[in-house]
């Protein structure tokens, strides 16, 4: 077990180096000279040279790469190009609002999806099952933008049940007042795909031999579904959840943007709009590192829930 973790940690290093190289390549080579981006079109050569010196882009590439690696290791990406706010400060302060929306969304969404998935898998092949599946397909086909626009218009603008947008200082206020409509929209968007996926996982298990054994033992259908099947289906579900975790952090960026929630997702959109490279670079690298770490965590969880897996 320890050996496995050590080896996996060791194997993470090339991946991290790859991410660093990829981001460096994107921003320093594909993107052209960042000095022009930063300075805009109005500046003269002298200003540009000045900026180039500050950014270090007049140095050979390995020096620049060194600077980049140092930035990543120290967490000091300097200041945002557009707001002059420290990048590290941006990252730390934007995490909270994102999590305020995401954590409840994930808990509720997962619970509802699993319950519905078990229910429709139980009546597999029936009219209900097929109707729910087609409904899911249609729900999946409507753009998330339409959900947000329409929900915001009706529930907030027209009916006034929720504030149209905004964010406060108190956690409870944010959660109850400002986050509820975003969470509702998040549920509307995420349940359909999760339900479809989890139903597949449950169906895979329902067709296994051990379910037949349980039936042959006289175990009731309810117990088979909620105990025997769910315990097995939870293995792919947990793995899927863990893998989706870092993506979720950004996945709700549209919601954050529409509702002016000062989270990571909105921050990245603002940064892209403003060509605020330090912020984009920092978010990309750290989210990638977080993903790599969650992947390891996912494998360890996998081991914990599945006695068949022997990690060597």
């Amino acid at each position, binding site marked *: 077990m320890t050996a496995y973790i050590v080896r996996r940690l060791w194997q993470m290093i090339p991946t991290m180096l790859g991410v660093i190289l*990829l981001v460096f390549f994107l921003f320093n080579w594909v993107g052209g000279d960042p000095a022009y981006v930063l300075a805009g079109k109005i500046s003269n050569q002298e200003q540009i040279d000045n900026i180039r010196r500050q950014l270090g882009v007049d140095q050979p590439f390995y020096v620049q790469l060194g600077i980049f690696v140092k930035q990543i290791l120290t967490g000091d990406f300097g200041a945002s190009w557009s707001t002059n706010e420290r990048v590290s400060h941006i990252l730390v302060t934007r995490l909270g609002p994102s999590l305020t929306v995401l954590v409840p969304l994930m808990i509720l969404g997962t619970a509802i999806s699993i319950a519905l998935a078990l229910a429709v898998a139980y009546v*597999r092949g029936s009219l209900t099952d097929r109707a729910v*599946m*087609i409904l899911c397909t*249609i729900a999946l086909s409507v753009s998330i*933008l339409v959900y947000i626009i329409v929900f915001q218009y009706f529930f907030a603008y027209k009916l006034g049940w929720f504030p149209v947008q905004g964010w406060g200082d108190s956690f409870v206020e944010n959660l109850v007042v400002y986050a509820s409509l975003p969470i509702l929209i998040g549920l509307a968007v995420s349940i359909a795909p999760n339900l479809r*996926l989890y139903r597949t996982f449950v169906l895979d298990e329902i067709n296994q031999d051990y379910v037949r054994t349980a039936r042959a033992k006289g175990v009731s259908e309810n117990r088979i579904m909620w105990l025997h099947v769910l315990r097995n289906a939870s293995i792919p579900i947990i793995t899927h959840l863990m893998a989706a975790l870092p*993506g979720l952090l950004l996945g709700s960026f549209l919601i954050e943007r529409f509702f002016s929630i000062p989270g990571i997702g909105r921050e990245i959109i603002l940064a892209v709009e403003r060509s605020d490279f330090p912020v*984009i670079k920092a978010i990309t690298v750290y*989210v990638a590192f977080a993903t790599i770490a969650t992947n390891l965590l996912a494998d360890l969880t996998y081991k914990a829930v599945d006695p068949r897996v022997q990690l060597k």
Partner: protein
Amino acid sequence: MATDLATLRSPVPPVRREIPHTVSPGLWTLGWRRLRSDRVGMVSLAIVALFILMMTLSGTGLVARDWAREVGVNYAPPSWAGAAPAGGLLATPDTGVVTQGAAGAPAPEFKSSVVDPLADVLAELKGEKPAGGASAGDEKSVDPLADVMADIRKGKPVAEAAAEERRATLPMGGDKWGRDVLKKTIKGSETSIFVGLASAFVATFLGSLFGALAGYYGRWVDDFFNWFYSVFSSIPDLLLILAVAAVLQQKGTMTIVLILGLTGWTGVFRLIRAEYLKHKSREYVQAADAIGASNPRRMFMHIFPNVSHVVLVQLSILVVAFIKAEVILSFLGFGVPVDVVSWGSMLNEAQNELILGKWWQLVAAGTAMAILVTAFSLFTDALRDALDPKLKGRAGA
């Protein structure tokens, strides 16, 4: 009855046919037969085919060529909904004529959401409401856009448009400038479907090629592609797309195809690699090895036809995913350039219009997309069932 079934089930009728060259149905033919007997799948296929036909017609200029002409009054309502409601925020003269000769009238300080969708929408809206009725200069706001719009208009028979009477209603309503929403939707479909198809082809090609090489050759080839894969997949898709979009300053349909295609191959890679790993050790491939078939021959002649259904299904899953992604990117203004209309840019305009009560552009773009994507997804499910009957009824994400 029982006798009929018995004959029907017998594996091979050992009857010598009159013409020995009767070609037996292969797995593709059988799959196509299964697909044809799937009503939902066939209806979906027909709808998808219609959309692709529409895309082709629009792309070749046979329909919706004049989508940018301002044929109706501003925010002309759909014909079937009746003429514009009284008390609308926009001055809609009874004559139905809006003298928009001021098309070139500069209103430099005003930012339209088309140009700058990044601004806070609702706040912006409040500032826009009074302006909307008073001036028609919205589209002439920021430098690059102005040129583009002027170009577009030059290309069209502007004089004609000006001379022509503007219609009070349009089949599916009109947008802010009185352009026909129906034509706009057709033109927008062209862009969105093209981007979806083209980028899915790029991503599927890359993913299949990498996956085949990694899964088949194993060892250091596998290690290398796996490293490449884990680097790409550890950056969440949307973040990678946004980062590339931020770096690539020029916008264009081909740019977005490349962004989506070059970042979206990871899922296909993972599946195809796994398929190749599985098939590599299958007995029919070992048998091919035993008779002396070379590596490329085994990879492409033997294994590929047996995993091609996975490729096909992945391709159609990606088309749907990329259409959705394009819509979001264009909505945010990172997608297609402003002189190109797509479902995303339509939805961008639509969010402001909705608050003014002008819902038709939202409904048109949203519905067109929903119909296509639903049809495509249902078709994908049917395709999967038809090509891999073992999975029947397990349609999943």
